[in-house]
């Protein structure tokens, strides 16, 4: 419903320690992260665990804003790591992409609309605006016009959604664009005629109806097994090869079993 870009909800994981107790070592390095709103919950959990394992060594400042904002921030040196939710494109020369997890993109409707399945052509025609009313969609219990919700252009989930589930077409321009996954979820939750797309973490939090794609449910299991078609990758991106505290964190995420456990809780591990 409302278009807001925010670099503003920054969560310093365990940085509040600074208020409670004077920071012991002045050699605490600060890693700044910005980017995708879809990988934010994962990165926040990973960072929290990392700080717990390495107290007083490193602090994180994680902001959101969208995949492209993160890429631009890391290119300009404003942040150390960018959270990216789409595959690297040709414009990303000079950046190093480190995949950390996979996620599935689910089509969601309002809870009152118990639509169970959509075929690929139905998904395409709904999101490109060809199908305009719920009455033309078999299995839908909503009535009236279809309110399409999409993401703003900076969203990695949007780029992945377009290439994986929308046959490369664009979402209809009349759709309401939400700036973050949270806002998209709020929008579809409050609009009985709404339809949108979210990462599987947000989609399966309850409060929304997750729609099967071509008969395949959208969750961790189907994504891991390769059954579900809309699976994309979360990357941590640095300018050039990662160095220092950022490199240590990324390598920890890629290799340590503790990190793998966190990833496997809601997302899909790589390799």
């Amino acid at each position, binding site marked *: 419903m409302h278009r807001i870009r925010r670099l503003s*909800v920054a969560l310093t994981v365990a940085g509040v320690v600074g208020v409670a107790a004077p920071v012991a070592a002045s050699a605490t*390095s600060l890693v700044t992260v910005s980017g995708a709103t879809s990988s934010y919950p994962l990165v926040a959990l990973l960072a929290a665990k990392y700080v717990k394992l390495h107290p007083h060594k490193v602090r994180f400042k994680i902001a959101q804003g969208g995949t492209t904002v993160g890429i631009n921030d890391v290119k300009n040196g404003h942040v150390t790591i960018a959270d990216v939710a789409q595959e690297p494109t040709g414009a990303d020369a000079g950046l190093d992409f480190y995949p950390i997890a996979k996620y599935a993109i689910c089509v969601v409707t309002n809870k009152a609309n118990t639509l169970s399945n959509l075929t690929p052509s139905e998904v395409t025609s709904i999101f490109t605006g060809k199908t305009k009313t719920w009455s033309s969609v078999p299995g839908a219990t909503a009535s009236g016009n279809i309110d399409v919700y999409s993401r703003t252009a900076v969203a990695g989930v949007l780029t992945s959604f377009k290439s994986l589930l929308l046959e490369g077409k664009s979402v209809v321009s009349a759709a309401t664009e939400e700036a973050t996954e949270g806002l998209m979820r709020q929008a579809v939750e409050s609009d009985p005629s709404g339809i949108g797309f979210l990462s599987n973490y947000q989609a399966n939090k309850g409060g929304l109806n997750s729609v099967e794609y071509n008969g395949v449910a959208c969750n961790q299991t189907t994504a891991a097994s390769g059954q579900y078609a809309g699976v994309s990758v979360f990357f941590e991106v640095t300018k050039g090869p990662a160095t220092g505290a950022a490199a240590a964190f990324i390598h920890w995420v890629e290799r340590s079993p503790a990190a793998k456990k966190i990833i496997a809780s809601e997302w899909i591990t790589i390799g």
Partner: protein
Amino acid sequence: MSTPPPFSSWLWSWRDPKPDPIKAGGSGGGRRSSPMSWRWGDRLVLVAAWGSGIFLCVVAAAIVLYMGYRGIQDLRPALIFSHPRVGETGGFSGGFLDPLLGTLFLTVIGIVLALPLALASAVWIAEYGRPSWLARVVESSIEVVAGTPDIVIAIFGLAIFQVSLLAPFSFTSEGGGVYGRSFIAAGAMMSLLALPPVYAATRDGIQSVPAHMREAAFALGKTRITTIRRVLIPSVRSNIATGVTLGISRIIGSTAIVIILLGGLNIEPQGSVPGIGLLRGTGSSLTSYIYEASPAGEGGAPEKAYAAAFLLLIFVLALNLLVDRIGRAQARSTGMPTVGAVV
């Protein structure tokens, strides 16, 4: 360029409407024309005028009552004293202690930075003001600052504080980019908000100090600057207080500057030095908390938004009452006109 008087001035100086001979039915036998004898058009306008007045009262009452109703429902002492927390999906839980402290902190920084500047300019304009082109430049620039929208001030602040020279005022991330957002950055821009009210109030106050007070001081052999320090400024204390209170209400009510220049939720100091760390750190204010908790932000906690909004409203009303009190006390004690009264 003539400055429109601070818009609030009339509202605070108008206390008892003068007895109006025409309304009161005329003095000495003037017959008031009754609306019954008017033309239809005039009667319509009369109804419209009454309607507008009543409509505004109804709107004001509705806002206060609704905010009160929701606020009393949702405001709990626990909320005031606990830290806000962000859940996994971005929803807010906990209270709003950090935003409260953030508002307080920003107000203090803003006033501390604005007060010397405003006092110095007001004194200079009122008492010296030579050469006159310079005085016009200063007056005009303060007017420009007064008329600048909040969002423009915020963007200007972002541009300035992201310069690498000003990196000590926020922090630098490992890639070399300056973050540009901190309490000191937001506070510095807030001082621009508070500057015009304090300046105008002080200047009006100094200009309306009766000449005999200055002359008495000069007769005693005091220099001009000493007169200012020892006679004029103490006598306009209430004007300064009113100006500061107006400035505080402007700071408390500003949202755009906080959203843009103070990215964050919890108060997070930056670096290891305790006081400076807090200045360089990020946080939030009541207004940005309300914004984030509403459907426009991710907090998804409308009840908390109402509770915080109710608290904010109480603060603003209290400030209003304070200005009222100061104005009345001043009018009683010195007999000098109150802030901005029609001179």
